């Protein structure tokens, strides 16, 4: 039997007049775990769809298990050979009940009913979703939905599964679940996996990494071979893993792929130079937790409680009496896993939700004074929801951004001024303002939507996961702009996220949410010193902090409150004799 499962030869594809793929020749071995990395618009998803004949090559050829995808008669066999799992968990489940959905593929190909049942059960077991067989699909978490989608693919007994950005919309927990399943299917069932993503970390355990940029293959090799080439990754708008960056900063060989390798390299370098502990005069104990100092509070909550579906059997206490103080003019971060209550909490801050008990104070005034909402509170506390681009509706970007100011009943010239100002803050080019928001790229849409809230000139701007689903370059662009905006406008900014690296890079003060309450709050130094507790409540600490903690375990008395590559390099350099 041929060792090659999928082969493309000089594959080209044109999408709405634009060339999306410009001559791609790749082959995938049976049993391989390959990761395709690329920025948004690099052609990686277009490529994925050519692998099971959803896209027919514009030029060149694709063979799947020896079958030419451009021959119509081959399509049913190709689709049962290559299963696909897509990005949006909600838009690929066909049936309302988990097991019915898993059966869908088998039913389409006319598998005997008595056999389908067995296949469905074993597929659900393979993704550890057996217990959810008869559950309603829409009630599952994102990660669970994606595992059901994978089960649906497995039930059709494919030789290869393509995961087309299937982790992009998931939280860290869901992402880890999906990756674990993908690796296990690859090892235990020998299924070829082609994982498409823009998360560098997901590529580290793969057999092979292929980097796409502008419809070309930029690099192809083992993770080690690809990741040491920082220039290539920069060119692809992806950035380098932190482990590699740290080694680079220290002048060590930049080929460490995981925390252990990186820590070993550092320790090796330290030992080679003779352990120098002369600088170790500070305490290495974690600093005690301090509550956030509050001189001038812009927002405050007192014993804030929220019940969902009160007085029904479904009653749940989403917020358990939160005391929260937000100092004016800072960049604050709220972090917590899905279901920790953070989204419910922020909707109280602008009065979208009414507390079941407790108070919300804006500039020391109760926003629910006398049971009625304070007028204008939604203009003063701006809230940008997750995936805000889904709320765009006007004919042009300018009109859409003007929606908020117009609701504030401002005069036309003031509105125009604010639109221009907000667009500039988010880095939206003026010529885009007259275009339809629906013609913009994903990142531009997101920025237009954020501008729509900034244009209201809020005292406090709260953003719920503003970078969800964006590639590293797009995420950085938005966060940098937000920081500039916060400094220039002098407003208070609250970033809600589950990405620790974002908190580490940008936030002054951090609030950690867990289980409907604030577990702890304080500066980054104090928060990240409690790495163990953060891990216990399902949050990842930044990769650099993990490296530093490993170094401490290995005997290097370095301070654990390190959360950026630069700071880590500085700290480590104290122990390396030059």
């Amino acid at each position: 039997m041929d060792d090659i499962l999928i082969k493309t030869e000089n594959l080209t594809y044109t999408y709405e007049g634009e060339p999306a793929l410009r001559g791609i020749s790749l082959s995938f071995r049976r049993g391989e775990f390959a990761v395709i990395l690329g920025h948004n618009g690099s052609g990686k998803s277009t490529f994925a769809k050519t692998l099971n004949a959803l896209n027919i090559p514009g030029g060149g050829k694709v063979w799947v298990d020896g079958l030419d995808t451009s021959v119509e008669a081959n399509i049913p066999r190709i689709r049962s050979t290559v299963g696909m799992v897509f990005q949006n968990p909600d838009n690929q489940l066909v049936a309302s009940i988990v097991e019915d959905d898993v059966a869908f593929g088998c039913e389409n190909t006319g598998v005997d009913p008595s056999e389908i049942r067995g296949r469905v059960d074993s597929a659900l077991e393979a993704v550890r979703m057996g217990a959810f067989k008869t559950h309603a699909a829409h009630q599952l978490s994102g990660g669970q939905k994606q595992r059901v989608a994978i089960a649906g693919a497995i039930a059709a007994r494919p030789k290869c599964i393509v995961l087309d950005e299937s982790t992009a919309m998931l939280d860290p927990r869901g992402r880890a679940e999906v990756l674990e399943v993908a690796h296990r299917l690859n090892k235990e069932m020998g299924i070829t996996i082609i994982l498409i993503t823009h998360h560098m970390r997901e590529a580290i355990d793969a057999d092979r990494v292929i980097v796409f940029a502008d419809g070309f293959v930029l690099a192809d090799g083992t993770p080690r071979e690809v990741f040491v080439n920082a220039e290539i990754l920069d060119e692809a708008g992806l950035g380098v893993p932190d482990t590699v960056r740290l080694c680079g900063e220290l002048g060590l060989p930049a080929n460490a792929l995981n925390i252990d390798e990186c820590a070993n390299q550092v320790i090796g370098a330290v030992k080679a130079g003779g352990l120098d502990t002369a600088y170790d005069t500070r305490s290495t104990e974690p600093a005690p937790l301090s509550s956030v100092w509050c001189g001038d509070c812009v927002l405050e909550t007192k014993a804030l409680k929220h019940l969902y579906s009160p007085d029904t059997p479904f009653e749940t206490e989403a917020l358990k009496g939160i005391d929260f103080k937000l100092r004016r003019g800072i960049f604050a971060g709220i972090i917590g896993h899905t279901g920790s209550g953070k989204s419910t909490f922020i909707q109280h801050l602008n009065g979208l939700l009414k507390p079941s008990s407790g108070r919300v104070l804006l500039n020391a005034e109760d926003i629910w004074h006398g049971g009625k909402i304070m007028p204008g509170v939604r203009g003063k506390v701006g809230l940008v929801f997750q995936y805000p681009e889904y709320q765009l509706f006007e004919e042009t970007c300018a009109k859409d951004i003007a929606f908020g100011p117009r609701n504030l009943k401002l005069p036309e010239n003031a509105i125009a001024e604010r639109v221009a100002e907000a667009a500039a803050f988010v880095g939206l080019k003026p010529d885009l303002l007259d275009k339809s928001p629906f013609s913009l790229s994903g990142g531009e849409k997101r920025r237009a939507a954020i501008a729509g809230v900034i244009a209201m000139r809020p005292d406090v701007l709260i953003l719920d996961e503003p970078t969800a689903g964006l590639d590293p370059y797009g995420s950085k662009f938005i966060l940098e702009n937000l920081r500039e905006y916060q400094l220039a406008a002098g407003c208070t900014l609250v970033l809600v996220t589950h990405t620790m690296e974002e908190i580490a890079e940008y936030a002054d003060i951090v609030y950690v949410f867990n289980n409907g309450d604030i577990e702890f709050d304080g500066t980054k130094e104090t928060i990240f010193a409690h790495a163990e507790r953060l891990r216990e409540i399902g949050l990842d600490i930044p990769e650099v902090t993990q490296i530093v903690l490993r170094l401490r375990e290995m005997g290097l008395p370095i301070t654990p409150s390190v959360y950026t590559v630069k700071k880590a390099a500085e700290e480590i350099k104290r122990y390396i004799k030059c």
Partner: protein
Amino acid sequence: MLKNVTLGQYFPGSSIIHRLDPRTKLILTLVYIVVLFLCTGPSGYAICLIALCVCIGISQIKPKLILRGMKPLIIVIVITGLLNIFYTRGETVLLSFWVLTVTAEGIRNAVFMTLRILMLVSGTFLMTYTTSPLALTDAMESLMNPLKKLKMPVHELSMMMSIALRFIPTLIEETDKIMSAQKARGADFESGNLLQKAKALLPLLIPLFISAFRRADELAVAMEARGYHGGEGRTKMKQLRYMSCDAAAFTAGAVFAAAVIITRFLPV
């Protein structure tokens, strides 16, 4: 607000009602509805009510859930009741003011009509709560199978139905989200006259439609990727088969229908 709508939601369970063949449930629900309209007096309604309560009891569905689902219908029920009170002509006038007269017949009619609507809705809720939407559409497809010979797109219709049911909760959630997002931008959905209110809905409806189309598009691609090519040559994991409990249910249904029809000939 929208989260309270439970129309078309399925609550999995293992009661006899849950395990009945969906075709049985569909046919018996139809029988029940027809019989409800055959009721002429209190004894007929009493039998229907008892039958309904017994079924709800067996199904182990909490009556609260059924009542909650009826909330959005309150206005319809109240209006029907009022219209019947005021517009039924009768002989025994109880009350008369201005142009309105209330007669004993009117009150009787109003009570029966509201009861009829309430029972009709609870009966159908019981069916949708105990039958997965997919099973229900399977049942429809199977019952309508003879129509395929008349070139009716039976499979396509049932597929559309089941997808619609699958996406109702998703779209409701999305409506809630977009509404909150626009409210955060100062949108006001509550005040103003009817025209202003309708206009205020645009920022909600446009994103909702766009999202629905995007979802439809992505779902179509996902279905194609999973080898969907229409009803031809398709098999089904869950095949419908009548069991002994279905026979029992049909018997019970027949007895029930006969009992109600007999009440038509009784003096009360």
